[in-house]
């Protein structure tokens, strides 16, 4: 009886002690296990992100140069971030499972071996309960943290997207406000945004604007950080036309473009006129504050070629119909603004061929045309010469009448959707050095009205002059010579009148 009473008291004591210890034991073990799992998670995630050595991080693939993708690393938020999260999940799940297995083994070894007493087993049950609770708490903490990280990523992603479109809009808006548009001097397409070669490795990036490869900067496959917008300095890199792949003018996209096509018959003197304009612009500085520089290597090479030909043969080579119609481009600095000037010299054969004239997309971008009139091709002038003089001048004479070419160009301009009324025309009656001794040309003065009256009243070009006056918004007549290398005052006047229309002087 006494033994049973003692046993009852003993079990009451044990149960009381057990009850008193159970809560702190469960809570304590769950907290310790939670902290342990968190430490495991942080260590494993750091390893998975390559912060504690290079072996654990997801390898970063090198972008290819010739694939459909751009040769640049994708921006972290648009792809690699999600890959990293998945990688962290895989690595951490393995490590957490391993830690759980180890702890389970430890609990079994310490409390549930066959030779152990029931008291020890009871403590083991309490500890195991605490560990299970701790695992649950850790799972909740990790879920909350993961949700927080995903939320932060979503916010960053939305911000990045917003910034991306804002920057694109800002860049395009500022260019629009400043009247800047881009055109390729080689294929004459309007270019929304040029392609760029990486200054580090030369890889071609077709669209550097903010996007999946970067918002403010993109990292080329070689590691070079490229600016994504003209605003941020992308114009300092070499630009290429995305249509034809040809290099565009230096600083394309930061200055308003001036497109000036030379139109006129074959052998009317368009190339010489273009060379005279270039010479006046670059070498003779028509305005003290105006600095003009060739804007690409093509222009430098082409000018050298023309000068060489002029020195060797006394004349420039004829522009052939098959020649690439690339503009001579010049960066104009100083004066009131910066401009990029493109002067086109299409072969006369193309101007007289409607089908081919349509290929000249630059005509649509021009606001001023230079119409080169060969006075020797005017029938009244030619017929006023005696046979001997005609024979002497025949090599310098263009075959087609200025009137024919003018109507051809006008008709096709209208067909291309150009409104000539909104454009200006500089009519340059050239070869004044050759015609100075011809009596019918003696009355042609130098100012605009005198040249117009001479064309209209003296040499029978009245129909053409009327059509010019009726069709174009602003017209000015010039009598020029481009026979000598040094450009004369008339070319300077023509150049200044043209540039003045674009606010350069």
């Amino acid at each position: 009886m006494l033994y049973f009473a003692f046993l009852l008291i003993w079990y009451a004591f044990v149960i009381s002690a057990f009850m008193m210890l159970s809560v702190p034991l469960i809570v304590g073990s769950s907290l310790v296990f939670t902290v342990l799992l968190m430490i495991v998670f942080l260590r494993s995630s750091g390893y998975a992100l390559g912060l504690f050595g290079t072996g654990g991080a997801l390898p970063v693939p090198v972008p290819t140069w010739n694939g459909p993708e751009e040769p640049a690393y994708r921006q972290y938020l648009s792809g690699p971030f999600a890959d990293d999260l998945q990688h962290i999940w895989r690595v951490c799940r393995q490590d957490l499972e391993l830690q759980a297995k180890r702890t389970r083994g430890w609990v079994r070894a310490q409390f549930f071996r066959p030779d152990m007493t029931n008291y020890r087993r009871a403590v083991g049950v309490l500890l195991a309960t605490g560990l299970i609770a701790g695992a649950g708490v850790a799972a909740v903490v990790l879920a909350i943290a993961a949700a927080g990280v995903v939320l932060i990523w979503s916010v960053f992603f939305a911000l990045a997207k917003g910034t991306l479109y804002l920057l694109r809009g800002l860049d395009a808006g500022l260019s629009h406000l400043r009247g800047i548009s881009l055109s390729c001097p080689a294929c004459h397409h309007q270019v929304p945004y040029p392609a760029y070669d990486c200054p580090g490795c030369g890889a071609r990036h077709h669209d550097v604007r903010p996007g999946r490869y970067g918002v403010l900067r993109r990292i080329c496959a070689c590691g070079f950080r490229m600016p994504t917008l003209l605003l941020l300095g992308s114009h300092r890199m070499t630009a290429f036309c995305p249509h034809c792949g040809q290099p565009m003018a230096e600083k394309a996209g930061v200055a308003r473009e001036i497109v000036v096509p030379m139109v006129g018959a074959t052998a009317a003197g368009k190339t010489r006129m273009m060379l005279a304009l270039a010479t006046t612009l670059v070498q003779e500085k028509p305005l003290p504050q105006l600095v003009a520089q060739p804007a690409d290597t093509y222009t430098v090479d082409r000018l050298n070629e023309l000068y060489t030909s002029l020195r060797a043969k006394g004349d420039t080579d004829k522009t052939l119909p098959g020649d690439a119609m690339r503009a001579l481009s010049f960066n104009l600095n100083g004066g009131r603004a910066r401009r990029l000037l493109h002067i086109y010299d299409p072969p006369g054969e193309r101007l007289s061929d409607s089908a081919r004239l349509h290929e000249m997309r630059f005509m649509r971008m021009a606001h001023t045309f230079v119409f080169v009139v060969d006075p020797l091709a005017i029938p009244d002038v030619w017929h006023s010469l005696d046979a001997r003089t005609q024979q002497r001048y025949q090599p310098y004479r263009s075959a087609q009448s200025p009137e024919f070419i003018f109507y051809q160009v006008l008709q096709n301009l209208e067909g291309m959707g150009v409104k000539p009324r909104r454009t200006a025309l500089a009519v340059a009656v050239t070869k004044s050095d050759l015609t100075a001794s011809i009596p019918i040309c003696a009355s042609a003065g130098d100012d605009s009205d005198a040249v117009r009256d001479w064309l209209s009243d003296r040499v029978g070009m009245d129909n053409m002059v009327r059509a010019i006056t009726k069709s174009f918004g602003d017209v000015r007549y010039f009598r020029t010579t481009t026979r000598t290398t040094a450009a004369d005052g008339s070319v300077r006047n023509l150049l200044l009148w043209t540039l003045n229309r674009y606010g350069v002087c």
Partner: protein
Amino acid sequence: MGCADMDPYERWRQVLWMVSTVAIGVLTIAIVLTTVVVMFFGFAGSGSQPTTGY
């Protein structure tokens, strides 16, 4: 396609880990402290509850 010698995402990964660490650390410390405080005051309070007289 090979793998890059450089890690262009190094800084982003550091930031991600730091943000996770701070979030998890704060949550864990908050849970531990809250539990300890509740336990302490729970046990301490249970012995000194005022009686109603009934």
